[in-house]
């Protein structure tokens, strides 16, 4: 009808986001059926993220189960005016995954070489995730706009689960430099992804 109207790029992703938020609001009222639907919508995405960080499948399932139970318990604390349910749940899952990785530090080889090798694999995995193609392509495109150094820092921190101090140590650069790269990288992503600041 109006061919020159701007095309909303996230039009396909929006329903999932809205659906999750609507379901979570119902879950807060004790609706177990809504929780079941929320599980179907989110469990594989949460597991994808957690396993990306943790690697071990069995441990990752444990983490997802813990987080989803926590979602059930604390759904009433979610405020739909302050963010999306998808973000809320993935943030919880990410946190639990990095906590697990860090507490298992002794058993996990986190030296520089392994870290860097892991990084290469992370990038491959991200670029293969065609299933959630809309979001994935947007993120991939946005990541490509970062400098190599920014991208490396963001990936080590977010997907690798390393703290900023660990990243500094691994790359043998000052902590302040890591902080700046993370900040600049994230701001660039925010702009590229069209998130309001």
């Amino acid at each position: 009808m109006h061919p020159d109207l701007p095309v909303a790029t996230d039009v396909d992703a929006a329903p999932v986001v809205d659906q999750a938020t609507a379901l979570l609001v119902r879950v807060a009222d004790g609706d177990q059926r809504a929780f079941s639907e929320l599980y179907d919508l989110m469990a594989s995405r949460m597991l994808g993220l957690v396993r990306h960080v943790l690697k071990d499948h069995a441990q990752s399932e444990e983490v997802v189960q813990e987080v989803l139970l926590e979602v059930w318990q604390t759904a009433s604390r979610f405020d739909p005016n302050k963010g999306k349910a998808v973000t809320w749940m993935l943030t919880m899952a990410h946190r639990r995954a990095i906590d697990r990785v860090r507490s298992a530090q002794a058993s996990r080889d986190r030296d520089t070489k392994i870290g860097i090798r892991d990084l290469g694999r992370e990038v491959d995995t991200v670029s293969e995730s065609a299933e959630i193609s809309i979001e994935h392509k947007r993120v991939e495109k946005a990541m490509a706009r970062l400098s190599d150094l920014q991208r490396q820092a963001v990936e080590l921190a977010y997907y690798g689960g390393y703290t900023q101090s660990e990243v500094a140590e691994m790359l043998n650069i000052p902590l302040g430099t890591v902080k700046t790269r993370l900040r600049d990288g994230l701001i660039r992503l925010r702009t590229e992804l069209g998130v309001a600041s």
Partner: protein
Amino acid sequence: MSALSNDMLETAAAYALGALDADEAAAFESVLATSPELQREVESLREVSGMLGAATAPVAPSAGLKQSLMAQVAATPQLPREQAPAAPTEPTAAPSDAAAPSHAAAHRAPTLAAVSATPAAAPAPIPMSGLASEKANARWFSRPASLVAAAAAAVALFFGGVFAADLVNPAANDQQVLAQVVAAPDATVASSEVAGGATASLVSSESLGVSVMVFDGLDELSSDEAYALWYITGDEIAPAGLFTVDGSGEVVQVLDGEFVAGTVVGVTVEPADGSPQPTSEPIVAIATTEA
């Protein structure tokens, strides 16, 4: 637009990416809780990191996972919706609070046990696996509007030329002063662990000449003792105020006197009416960098 300092913005980004260690995150959250401006920034950055999370390839869980989770859900009570916002942070007057853990270590009770021990009717403390970060995450999504309004009012007060630290009720205003310092263009945060597992953060602004200590998990003292703050510059040690802590272990304390960048802030335990100079070893000392 945002007038947050570079240090604040960098810490917010690292926080949103999960790149702070546990102590750094707990310290940042104490500060975050007081600054609506910083909260908005973190909210926006989290949306970005959430998209990074959503971009990983989905992995199908094994068939049994849903079944066992649904069984757990059927047997697990939920937190009630929060009552009308009254307390600025966690509820402190709830009957369940006596049993509530006040230290990070004590928070690590198993989730199920923590929940079932909580009377369903009480506005319960968040009984999650208890990492400070998760606690604040829950807090974050349910900020009482009143606190946000209070912090906004504090900023308005400051720009009206009245410095909140000089107002009549200092205890009520320390949070507001903290919000101002956090919002200062040269605000910096330095954190350190306190013996016994508590965390201490010093938020300071050279341009305002003000610094604020934020503690989490600090031990209660006997009634004849108090915590004392000191500004330490070279050999000179100037008293910067006394404070006590209740069972919550949470304290926001504005330091007396003018803050100068490069000063070290120390905390000691002293007799309740204070001492002219420290009489014990500091439980924590935080150095600041010269401007």
